[in-house]
Protein backbone atom coordinates (compact mmCIF):
# COMPACT_ATOMS: atom_id res chain seq x y z
CA UNK A 1 0.00 0.00 0.00
CA UNK A 2 1.39 3.36 -0.96
CA UNK A 3 1.58 6.13 1.68
CA UNK A 4 -0.89 8.08 -0.43
CA UNK A 5 -3.47 5.31 -0.30
CA UNK A 6 -2.87 4.93 3.42
CA UNK A 7 -3.64 8.60 3.96
CA UNK A 8 -6.72 8.38 1.77
CA UNK A 9 -7.90 5.42 3.80
CA UNK A 10 -7.17 6.95 7.19
CA UNK A 11 -8.43 10.50 6.99
CA UNK A 12 -12.21 9.83 6.98
CA UNK A 13 -12.24 7.79 10.22
CA UNK A 14 -9.77 10.17 11.84
CA UNK A 15 -11.88 13.17 10.91
CA UNK A 16 -15.03 11.52 12.22
CA UNK A 17 -13.26 10.61 15.47
CA UNK A 18 -12.05 14.20 15.86
CA UNK A 19 -15.57 15.56 15.39
CA UNK A 20 -16.99 13.11 17.93
CA UNK A 21 -14.26 13.93 20.45
CA UNK A 22 -14.89 17.63 20.02
CA UNK A 23 -18.61 17.11 20.64
CA UNK A 24 -17.80 15.06 23.73
CA UNK A 25 -15.46 17.79 24.99
CA UNK A 26 -18.13 20.47 24.56
CA UNK A 27 -20.79 18.32 26.19
CA UNK A 28 -18.58 17.58 29.21
CA UNK A 29 -17.32 21.15 29.62
CA UNK A 30 -20.55 23.07 29.15
CA UNK A 31 -23.45 20.78 29.90
CA UNK A 32 -22.60 17.98 32.33
CA UNK A 33 -19.75 19.64 34.19
CA UNK A 34 -19.17 16.62 36.42
CA UNK A 35 -16.00 14.60 35.86
CA UNK A 36 -17.32 11.71 37.92
CA UNK A 37 -20.19 11.26 35.49
CA UNK A 38 -18.57 12.21 32.21
CA UNK A 39 -14.97 13.36 32.14
CA UNK A 40 -13.93 15.31 29.07
CA UNK A 41 -11.35 13.90 26.64
CA UNK A 42 -8.71 16.35 27.90
CA UNK A 43 -9.35 15.28 31.49
CA UNK A 44 -9.04 11.65 30.46
CA UNK A 45 -5.76 12.24 28.68
CA UNK A 46 -4.26 14.19 31.56
CA UNK A 47 -5.41 11.63 34.15
CA UNK A 48 -4.02 8.82 32.01
CA UNK A 49 -0.74 10.69 31.61
CA UNK A 50 -0.42 11.25 35.35
CA UNK A 51 -1.00 7.59 36.04
CA UNK A 52 1.07 6.38 33.12
CA UNK A 53 3.36 4.23 35.28
CA UNK A 54 0.43 2.45 36.91
CA UNK A 55 -1.23 1.91 33.55
CA UNK A 56 2.02 0.63 32.06
CA UNK A 57 2.61 -1.79 34.93
CA UNK A 58 -0.90 -3.11 34.62
CA UNK A 59 -0.85 -3.28 30.83
CA UNK A 60 2.20 -5.53 30.75
CA UNK A 61 0.61 -8.58 32.44
CA UNK A 62 -2.52 -8.15 30.32
CA UNK A 63 -0.52 -8.12 27.10
CA UNK A 64 1.50 -11.08 28.33
CA UNK A 65 -1.69 -13.07 28.97
CA UNK A 66 -3.00 -12.07 25.57
CA UNK A 67 0.20 -13.18 23.90
CA UNK A 68 0.39 -16.55 25.65
CA UNK A 69 -3.32 -17.22 25.30
CA UNK A 70 -3.19 -16.38 21.64
CA UNK A 71 -0.14 -18.54 21.03
CA UNK A 72 -1.90 -21.39 22.77
CA UNK A 73 -5.06 -21.06 20.72
CA UNK A 74 -2.98 -20.69 17.55
CA UNK A 75 -1.27 -24.04 18.13
CA UNK A 76 -4.44 -25.82 19.20
CA UNK A 77 -6.45 -24.50 16.26
CA UNK A 78 -3.83 -25.59 13.70
CA UNK A 79 -3.56 -29.03 15.24
CA UNK A 80 -7.33 -29.48 15.44
CA UNK A 81 -8.11 -28.09 11.99
CA UNK A 82 -5.40 -30.26 10.44
CA UNK A 83 -6.71 -33.33 12.23
CA UNK A 84 -10.21 -32.52 10.99
CA UNK A 85 -8.87 -32.20 7.47
CA UNK A 86 -7.16 -35.57 7.61
CA UNK A 87 -10.03 -37.49 9.14
CA UNK A 88 -13.74 -37.12 8.53
CA UNK A 89 -14.59 -38.87 11.79
CA UNK A 90 -12.41 -36.47 13.77
CA UNK A 91 -14.21 -33.66 12.00
CA UNK A 92 -17.62 -35.05 12.86
CA UNK A 93 -16.62 -35.53 16.48
CA UNK A 94 -14.82 -32.25 17.03
CA UNK A 95 -16.71 -29.64 15.04
CA UNK A 96 -19.91 -29.58 17.13
CA UNK A 97 -17.85 -29.27 20.31
CA UNK A 98 -15.90 -26.46 18.69
CA UNK A 99 -19.13 -24.57 18.09
CA UNK A 100 -20.28 -25.34 21.63
CA UNK A 101 -17.02 -23.95 23.03
CA UNK A 102 -17.84 -20.63 21.39
CA UNK A 103 -21.20 -20.41 23.15
CA UNK A 104 -19.67 -20.63 26.62
CA UNK A 105 -20.10 -17.21 28.25
CA UNK A 106 -16.65 -16.08 29.31
CA UNK A 107 -18.07 -13.92 32.11
CA UNK A 108 -19.69 -16.94 33.68
CA UNK A 109 -16.71 -19.24 33.67
CA UNK A 110 -13.98 -16.71 34.42
CA UNK A 111 -14.63 -16.87 38.21
CA UNK A 112 -14.71 -20.67 38.02
CA UNK A 113 -11.33 -20.71 36.34
CA UNK A 114 -9.95 -18.49 39.10
CA UNK A 115 -11.30 -20.91 41.72
CA UNK A 116 -9.82 -23.85 39.85
CA UNK A 117 -6.47 -22.41 38.80
CA UNK A 118 -5.82 -19.56 41.21
CA UNK A 119 -5.00 -15.88 40.74
CA UNK A 120 -1.95 -16.45 38.55
CA UNK A 121 -1.57 -16.16 34.81
CA UNK A 122 -2.87 -19.68 34.04
CA UNK A 123 -6.64 -19.09 34.02
CA UNK A 124 -6.24 -15.85 32.00
CA UNK A 125 -4.25 -17.60 29.33
CA UNK A 126 -6.91 -20.30 29.15
CA UNK A 127 -9.71 -17.76 28.85
CA UNK A 128 -7.97 -15.82 26.10
CA UNK A 129 -7.43 -19.12 24.29
CA UNK A 130 -11.07 -20.05 24.73
CA UNK A 131 -12.25 -16.68 23.41
CA UNK A 132 -10.02 -16.67 20.35
CA UNK A 133 -9.77 -20.27 19.40
CA UNK A 134 -13.06 -20.77 17.62
CA UNK A 135 -12.65 -18.16 14.86
CA UNK A 136 -9.13 -19.43 14.22
CA UNK A 137 -10.02 -23.11 14.07
CA UNK A 138 -13.23 -22.56 12.11
CA UNK A 139 -11.61 -20.33 9.49
CA UNK A 140 -8.73 -22.75 9.07
CA UNK A 141 -11.06 -25.70 8.73
CA UNK A 142 -13.05 -23.78 6.12
CA UNK A 143 -9.82 -22.89 4.31
CA UNK A 144 -8.69 -26.50 4.19
CA UNK A 145 -12.10 -27.66 3.04
CA UNK A 146 -12.11 -25.04 0.29
CA UNK A 147 -9.07 -26.62 -1.40
CA UNK A 148 -9.57 -27.40 -5.06
CA UNK A 149 -10.18 -31.12 -5.56
CA UNK A 150 -8.63 -30.87 -9.02
CA UNK A 151 -5.38 -29.65 -7.50
CA UNK A 152 -5.45 -32.76 -5.29
CA UNK A 153 -5.89 -34.91 -8.37
CA UNK A 154 -3.08 -33.18 -10.22
CA UNK A 155 -0.70 -33.80 -7.32
CA UNK A 156 -1.83 -37.39 -6.97
CA UNK A 157 -1.17 -37.96 -10.68
CA UNK A 158 2.35 -36.72 -9.97
CA UNK A 159 2.63 -39.31 -7.21
CA UNK A 160 2.30 -37.01 -4.19
CA UNK A 161 1.53 -38.35 -0.71
CA UNK A 162 -1.31 -37.07 1.48
CA UNK A 163 1.17 -35.05 3.54
CA UNK A 164 2.74 -33.52 0.47
CA UNK A 165 -0.71 -32.51 -0.80
CA UNK A 166 -1.54 -31.02 2.59
CA UNK A 167 1.59 -28.86 2.66
CA UNK A 168 1.64 -27.98 -1.02
CA UNK A 169 -2.02 -27.16 -1.62
CA UNK A 170 -4.06 -27.00 1.53
CA UNK A 171 -1.90 -24.95 3.84
CA UNK A 172 -1.10 -22.12 1.39
CA UNK A 173 -4.68 -22.20 0.08
CA UNK A 174 -6.05 -21.82 3.61
CA UNK A 175 -3.89 -18.83 4.54
CA UNK A 176 -6.28 -16.13 3.28
CA UNK A 177 -9.07 -17.77 5.28
CA UNK A 178 -6.84 -18.02 8.28
CA UNK A 179 -6.11 -14.30 8.20
CA UNK A 180 -9.84 -13.46 8.16
CA UNK A 181 -10.25 -15.63 11.24
CA UNK A 182 -7.17 -14.12 12.82
CA UNK A 183 -8.64 -10.63 12.52
CA UNK A 184 -11.86 -11.69 14.21
CA UNK A 185 -9.97 -13.54 16.94
CA UNK A 186 -7.51 -10.78 17.68
CA UNK A 187 -10.27 -8.32 18.51
CA UNK A 188 -11.44 -10.74 21.21
CA UNK A 189 -7.98 -11.40 22.56
CA UNK A 190 -7.27 -8.40 24.79
CA UNK A 191 -10.83 -8.00 25.99
CA UNK A 192 -10.76 -11.72 26.83
CA UNK A 193 -7.76 -11.11 29.05
CA UNK A 194 -9.41 -8.07 30.66
CA UNK A 195 -12.54 -10.09 31.40
CA UNK A 196 -10.43 -12.81 32.96
CA UNK A 197 -8.68 -10.30 35.22
CA UNK A 198 -12.01 -8.90 36.29
CA UNK A 199 -12.68 -12.18 38.00
CA UNK A 200 -9.59 -11.83 40.12
CA UNK A 201 -5.96 -11.01 39.51
CA UNK A 202 -2.93 -9.52 41.21
CA UNK A 203 -2.35 -6.99 38.48
CA UNK A 204 -3.57 -6.23 34.98
CA UNK A 205 -5.74 -3.71 33.19
CA UNK A 206 -8.90 -5.62 34.13
CA UNK A 207 -8.31 -5.48 37.86
CA UNK A 208 -7.03 -1.89 37.64
CA UNK A 209 -10.19 -0.96 35.76
CA UNK A 210 -12.29 -2.51 38.48
CA UNK A 211 -10.40 -0.69 41.24
CA UNK A 212 -10.79 2.67 39.51
CA UNK A 213 -14.50 2.08 39.06
CA UNK A 214 -14.84 1.42 42.76
CA UNK A 215 -13.23 4.75 43.59
CA UNK A 216 -15.26 6.65 40.97
CA UNK A 217 -12.32 7.63 38.83
CA UNK A 218 -14.29 7.74 35.59
CA UNK A 219 -11.44 9.66 33.92
CA UNK A 220 -9.01 6.78 34.57
CA UNK A 221 -11.58 4.18 33.59
CA UNK A 222 -11.89 5.90 30.23
CA UNK A 223 -8.11 6.18 29.94
CA UNK A 224 -7.71 2.43 30.54
CA UNK A 225 -10.45 1.67 28.04
CA UNK A 226 -8.64 3.84 25.50
CA UNK A 227 -5.39 1.95 26.10
CA UNK A 228 -7.20 -1.37 25.57
CA UNK A 229 -8.76 -0.08 22.35
CA UNK A 230 -5.46 1.26 21.01
CA UNK A 231 -3.72 -2.05 21.72
CA UNK A 232 -6.50 -4.00 20.00
CA UNK A 233 -6.41 -1.79 16.93
CA UNK A 234 -2.62 -2.10 16.81
CA UNK A 235 -2.87 -5.90 16.89
CA UNK A 236 -5.54 -5.74 14.22
CA UNK A 237 -3.28 -3.63 11.99
CA UNK A 238 -0.46 -6.07 12.66
CA UNK A 239 -2.48 -8.88 11.05
CA UNK A 240 -2.52 -6.90 7.79
CA UNK A 241 1.23 -6.47 7.87
CA UNK A 242 1.67 -10.15 8.61
CA UNK A 243 -0.69 -11.07 5.79
CA UNK A 244 1.14 -8.91 3.27
CA UNK A 245 4.40 -10.48 4.32
CA UNK A 246 3.19 -14.09 4.29
CA UNK A 247 0.91 -13.98 1.25
CA UNK A 248 2.73 -11.74 -1.21
CA UNK A 249 0.81 -13.11 -4.21
CA UNK A 250 -2.51 -11.78 -2.96
CA UNK A 251 -1.93 -8.25 -4.15
CA UNK A 252 -1.65 -9.51 -7.74
CA UNK A 253 -4.83 -11.51 -7.35
CA UNK A 254 -6.64 -8.41 -6.14
CA UNK A 255 -5.22 -6.41 -9.03
CA UNK A 256 -6.41 -9.10 -11.43
CA UNK A 257 -9.90 -9.06 -9.94
CA UNK A 258 -10.01 -5.29 -10.19
CA UNK A 259 -9.53 -5.77 -13.92
CA UNK A 260 -6.03 -4.34 -14.12
Amino acid at each position, binding site marked *: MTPRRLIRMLWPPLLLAAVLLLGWQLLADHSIKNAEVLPSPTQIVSAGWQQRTAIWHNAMPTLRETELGFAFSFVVSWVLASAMDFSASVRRAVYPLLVASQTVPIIAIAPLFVVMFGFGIGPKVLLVALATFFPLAASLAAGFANADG*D*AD*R*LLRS*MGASRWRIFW*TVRVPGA*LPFFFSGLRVAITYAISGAVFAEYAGAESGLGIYLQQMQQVFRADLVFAIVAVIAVCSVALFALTYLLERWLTPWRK*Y*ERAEKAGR
Partner: protein
Amino acid sequence: MSEFLLETKGLTHEYARPGGAEPLAVLDGLDLQVREGEIAALVGPSGCGKSTLLNILSGLDRQTGGAVTIGGAGSVAYMPQKDLLFPWRTIEDNAILGLEVGGLKKKDAREQVRPLFAEFGLAGFEYAYPAQLSGGMRQRVALLRTVAMQRPVLLLDEPFGALDSLTRTQMQLWLAETWQRHGWTIVLVTHDIREAVFLADSVHVLTPRPARVARRVEIELPRPRTVDTFGLPQFATLERELLGVLTSGDVG
Protein backbone atom coordinates in the same frame (compact mmCIF):
# COMPACT_ATOMS: atom_id res chain seq x y z
CA MET B 1 7.85 -54.71 -27.01
CA SER B 2 4.94 -53.53 -29.05
CA GLU B 3 5.25 -50.80 -31.63
CA PHE B 4 3.10 -48.55 -29.47
CA LEU B 5 4.30 -46.46 -26.56
CA LEU B 6 0.83 -46.35 -25.06
CA GLU B 7 -1.77 -48.97 -25.68
CA THR B 8 -5.05 -49.96 -24.11
CA LYS B 9 -6.69 -53.29 -24.87
CA GLY B 10 -10.35 -53.92 -24.21
CA LEU B 11 -10.46 -51.30 -21.50
CA THR B 12 -13.72 -51.45 -19.55
CA HIS B 13 -14.84 -49.53 -16.53
CA GLU B 14 -17.99 -49.73 -14.47
CA TYR B 15 -19.16 -47.70 -11.50
CA ALA B 16 -21.12 -49.44 -8.79
CA ARG B 17 -24.51 -47.88 -8.20
CA PRO B 18 -26.27 -47.72 -4.86
CA GLY B 19 -29.21 -49.91 -4.00
CA GLY B 20 -28.13 -52.95 -5.97
CA ALA B 21 -28.85 -51.32 -9.33
CA GLU B 22 -27.00 -52.42 -12.47
CA PRO B 23 -23.49 -50.97 -12.41
CA LEU B 24 -22.96 -48.04 -14.74
CA ALA B 25 -20.77 -48.98 -17.71
CA VAL B 26 -18.58 -46.06 -18.75
CA LEU B 27 -15.92 -47.67 -20.91
CA ASP B 28 -16.77 -50.66 -23.08
CA GLY B 29 -13.76 -52.37 -24.61
CA LEU B 30 -11.77 -49.31 -25.53
CA ASP B 31 -8.70 -49.89 -27.70
CA LEU B 32 -6.19 -47.12 -28.08
CA GLN B 33 -2.84 -47.18 -29.83
CA VAL B 34 -0.35 -44.36 -29.60
CA ARG B 35 3.03 -44.62 -31.32
CA GLU B 36 6.12 -42.99 -29.91
CA GLY B 37 6.43 -39.36 -30.95
CA GLU B 38 2.88 -39.15 -32.20
CA ILE B 39 0.06 -36.82 -31.26
CA ALA B 40 -3.07 -38.87 -30.81
CA ALA B 41 -6.28 -36.90 -30.45
CA LEU B 42 -9.38 -38.19 -28.69
CA VAL B 43 -12.65 -36.64 -29.70
CA GLY B 44 -16.09 -37.63 -28.58
CA PRO B 45 -19.46 -36.36 -27.46
CA SER B 46 -19.59 -34.75 -24.00
CA GLY B 47 -20.20 -37.12 -21.15
CA CYS B 48 -18.84 -40.06 -23.13
CA GLY B 49 -16.48 -41.15 -20.37
CA LYS B 50 -13.37 -39.20 -21.32
CA SER B 51 -12.65 -38.13 -17.75
CA THR B 52 -12.85 -41.74 -16.62
CA LEU B 53 -10.40 -42.68 -19.35
CA LEU B 54 -8.09 -39.84 -18.32
CA ASN B 55 -8.24 -40.90 -14.68
CA ILE B 56 -7.25 -44.42 -15.65
CA LEU B 57 -4.45 -43.33 -17.98
CA SER B 58 -3.05 -40.93 -15.39
CA GLY B 59 -3.17 -43.58 -12.68
CA LEU B 60 -5.79 -41.91 -10.50
CA ASP B 61 -8.27 -44.73 -11.03
CA ARG B 62 -7.99 -48.41 -11.77
CA GLN B 63 -9.99 -49.92 -14.63
CA THR B 64 -12.39 -52.75 -13.91
CA GLY B 65 -11.31 -54.68 -17.01
CA GLY B 66 -8.73 -54.72 -19.80
CA ALA B 67 -5.17 -53.51 -19.78
CA VAL B 68 -3.14 -50.34 -20.15
CA THR B 69 0.50 -50.58 -21.18
CA ILE B 70 2.82 -47.63 -21.20
CA GLY B 71 6.42 -48.02 -22.33
CA GLY B 72 9.45 -46.28 -20.88
CA ALA B 73 9.12 -45.03 -17.32
CA GLY B 74 5.59 -46.29 -17.36
CA SER B 75 3.54 -43.25 -16.49
CA VAL B 76 2.03 -40.20 -18.08
CA ALA B 77 2.35 -36.53 -17.25
CA TYR B 78 -1.14 -35.17 -16.88
CA MET B 79 -2.20 -31.64 -17.76
CA PRO B 80 -5.73 -31.01 -16.52
CA GLN B 81 -8.30 -28.85 -18.21
CA LYS B 82 -7.90 -25.98 -15.75
CA ASP B 83 -4.38 -24.62 -15.61
CA LEU B 84 -4.35 -25.25 -11.83
CA LEU B 85 -1.37 -23.01 -11.28
CA PHE B 86 -0.92 -22.34 -7.59
CA PRO B 87 -1.42 -18.62 -7.03
CA TRP B 88 1.08 -18.61 -4.15
CA ARG B 89 3.91 -20.03 -6.23
CA THR B 90 5.95 -18.06 -8.72
CA ILE B 91 5.89 -19.21 -12.33
CA GLU B 92 9.20 -20.96 -11.83
CA ASP B 93 8.01 -22.76 -8.72
CA ASN B 94 4.80 -23.79 -10.45
CA ALA B 95 6.84 -25.22 -13.29
CA ILE B 96 8.94 -27.41 -10.98
CA LEU B 97 5.97 -28.84 -9.07
CA GLY B 98 6.15 -32.26 -10.69
CA LEU B 99 9.89 -32.53 -10.21
CA GLU B 100 9.59 -31.46 -6.59
CA VAL B 101 6.91 -34.05 -5.89
CA GLY B 102 9.21 -36.55 -7.61
CA GLY B 103 11.76 -35.87 -4.88
CA LEU B 104 14.11 -33.42 -6.59
CA LYS B 105 15.53 -30.55 -4.52
CA LYS B 106 14.02 -27.16 -5.37
CA LYS B 107 17.34 -25.77 -6.48
CA ASP B 108 18.11 -28.65 -8.82
CA ALA B 109 14.58 -28.65 -10.19
CA ARG B 110 14.78 -24.93 -10.96
CA GLU B 111 18.04 -25.42 -12.80
CA GLN B 112 16.50 -28.17 -14.82
CA VAL B 113 13.47 -26.18 -16.03
CA ARG B 114 15.25 -22.86 -16.57
CA PRO B 115 16.30 -23.53 -20.19
CA LEU B 116 12.67 -24.22 -21.15
CA PHE B 117 11.34 -20.77 -20.29
CA ALA B 118 12.51 -19.02 -23.45
CA GLU B 119 11.03 -21.66 -25.69
CA PHE B 120 7.70 -21.46 -23.90
CA GLY B 121 7.66 -17.69 -24.32
CA LEU B 122 8.01 -17.19 -20.58
CA ALA B 123 11.50 -15.73 -20.29
CA GLY B 124 11.48 -12.86 -17.83
CA PHE B 125 8.38 -14.17 -16.05
CA GLU B 126 10.14 -16.72 -13.84
CA TYR B 127 9.46 -14.75 -10.67
CA ALA B 128 6.02 -13.44 -11.58
CA TYR B 129 2.89 -14.83 -9.98
CA PRO B 130 0.18 -16.55 -12.05
CA ALA B 131 -2.26 -13.67 -11.50
CA GLN B 132 0.11 -11.43 -13.46
CA LEU B 133 -0.08 -13.59 -16.59
CA SER B 134 -2.55 -13.77 -19.47
CA GLY B 135 -4.63 -16.88 -20.08
CA GLY B 136 -2.43 -18.08 -22.93
CA MET B 137 0.72 -17.67 -20.87
CA ARG B 138 -0.79 -19.50 -17.91
CA GLN B 139 -1.64 -22.38 -20.21
CA ARG B 140 1.96 -22.46 -21.42
CA VAL B 141 3.16 -22.58 -17.80
CA ALA B 142 0.84 -25.53 -17.19
CA LEU B 143 2.26 -27.26 -20.25
CA LEU B 144 5.80 -26.47 -19.14
CA ARG B 145 5.03 -28.01 -15.75
CA THR B 146 3.78 -31.13 -17.56
CA VAL B 147 6.72 -31.38 -19.94
CA ALA B 148 9.25 -30.78 -17.15
CA MET B 149 8.27 -34.06 -15.50
CA GLN B 150 9.98 -35.89 -18.37
CA ARG B 151 7.52 -38.70 -18.51
CA PRO B 152 7.19 -40.68 -21.74
CA VAL B 153 3.63 -39.61 -22.52
CA LEU B 154 1.92 -36.23 -22.13
CA LEU B 155 -1.78 -36.40 -21.43
CA LEU B 156 -3.43 -33.09 -22.29
CA ASP B 157 -7.07 -32.60 -21.38
CA GLU B 158 -8.55 -29.85 -23.56
CA PRO B 159 -5.47 -27.73 -23.00
CA PHE B 160 -6.76 -24.71 -24.90
CA GLY B 161 -10.47 -25.13 -24.19
CA ALA B 162 -10.75 -22.13 -21.91
CA LEU B 163 -9.00 -19.67 -24.22
CA ASP B 164 -10.55 -17.23 -26.63
CA SER B 165 -10.56 -18.29 -30.25
CA LEU B 166 -7.63 -16.18 -31.42
CA THR B 167 -5.39 -17.14 -28.49
CA ARG B 168 -6.36 -20.76 -29.00
CA THR B 169 -5.24 -20.69 -32.63
CA GLN B 170 -1.98 -19.02 -31.63
CA MET B 171 -1.39 -21.71 -29.02
CA GLN B 172 -2.11 -24.46 -31.55
CA LEU B 173 0.41 -22.98 -33.97
CA TRP B 174 2.94 -22.63 -31.18
CA LEU B 175 2.39 -26.21 -29.96
CA ALA B 176 2.78 -27.60 -33.51
CA GLU B 177 6.04 -25.71 -33.88
CA THR B 178 7.42 -26.71 -30.47
CA TRP B 179 6.35 -30.31 -30.90
CA GLN B 180 8.33 -30.36 -34.15
CA ARG B 181 11.52 -29.80 -32.17
CA HIS B 182 10.83 -32.19 -29.28
CA GLY B 183 8.76 -34.99 -30.77
CA TRP B 184 6.77 -35.53 -27.57
CA THR B 185 4.25 -38.34 -27.45
CA ILE B 186 0.95 -36.67 -26.71
CA VAL B 187 -2.56 -37.86 -26.00
CA LEU B 188 -4.73 -34.84 -26.69
CA VAL B 189 -8.33 -34.79 -25.53
CA THR B 190 -10.34 -32.14 -27.32
CA HIS B 191 -13.82 -31.12 -28.37
CA ASP B 192 -12.46 -29.15 -31.27
CA ILE B 193 -12.30 -31.15 -34.50
CA ARG B 194 -10.23 -28.44 -36.19
CA GLU B 195 -7.69 -28.61 -33.38
CA ALA B 196 -7.57 -32.40 -33.61
CA VAL B 197 -6.97 -32.39 -37.36
CA PHE B 198 -4.42 -29.59 -37.19
CA LEU B 199 -2.29 -31.06 -34.40
CA ALA B 200 -2.73 -34.81 -34.48
CA ASP B 201 -1.28 -37.74 -36.39
CA SER B 202 -4.26 -39.89 -35.53
CA VAL B 203 -7.73 -39.08 -34.28
CA HIS B 204 -9.68 -41.56 -32.19
CA VAL B 205 -13.39 -40.87 -32.31
CA LEU B 206 -15.20 -42.15 -29.25
CA THR B 207 -18.80 -43.34 -29.03
CA PRO B 208 -21.29 -41.98 -26.49
CA ARG B 209 -21.19 -43.73 -23.12
CA PRO B 210 -20.19 -46.52 -22.70
CA ALA B 211 -17.25 -45.39 -24.77
CA ARG B 212 -15.26 -47.35 -27.29
CA VAL B 213 -13.25 -46.15 -30.24
CA ALA B 214 -15.72 -45.83 -33.10
CA ARG B 215 -13.10 -44.94 -35.66
CA ARG B 216 -9.40 -44.26 -35.87
CA VAL B 217 -8.56 -41.74 -38.56
CA GLU B 218 -4.95 -41.21 -39.63
CA ILE B 219 -4.19 -37.57 -40.35
CA GLU B 220 -1.66 -37.61 -43.12
CA LEU B 221 -1.10 -33.90 -43.44
CA PRO B 222 2.48 -32.80 -44.08
CA ARG B 223 4.70 -31.67 -41.21
CA PRO B 224 5.69 -29.17 -40.06
CA ARG B 225 2.19 -27.85 -39.70
CA THR B 226 1.87 -24.12 -40.01
CA VAL B 227 -0.82 -21.57 -40.57
CA ASP B 228 -0.93 -22.74 -44.23
CA THR B 229 -2.06 -26.19 -43.10
CA PHE B 230 -5.52 -24.78 -42.40
CA GLY B 231 -5.84 -23.96 -46.12
CA LEU B 232 -4.96 -27.40 -47.50
CA PRO B 233 -7.76 -29.18 -49.35
CA GLN B 234 -7.06 -32.41 -47.37
CA PHE B 235 -7.57 -30.41 -44.18
CA ALA B 236 -11.11 -29.57 -45.12
CA THR B 237 -11.78 -33.13 -46.29
CA LEU B 238 -10.56 -34.62 -43.00
CA GLU B 239 -12.48 -32.10 -40.94
CA ARG B 240 -15.61 -32.92 -42.94
CA GLU B 241 -15.04 -36.66 -42.54
CA LEU B 242 -14.63 -36.45 -38.77
CA LEU B 243 -17.63 -34.21 -38.40
CA GLY B 244 -19.56 -36.80 -40.37
CA VAL B 245 -18.46 -39.62 -38.05
CA LEU B 246 -19.32 -37.62 -34.96
CA THR B 247 -22.76 -36.52 -36.12
CA SER B 248 -23.88 -39.68 -37.91
CA GLY B 249 -25.23 -42.88 -36.39
CA ASP B 250 -21.75 -44.40 -36.98
CA VAL B 251 -20.74 -43.33 -33.56
CA GLY B 252 -23.50 -45.05 -31.67
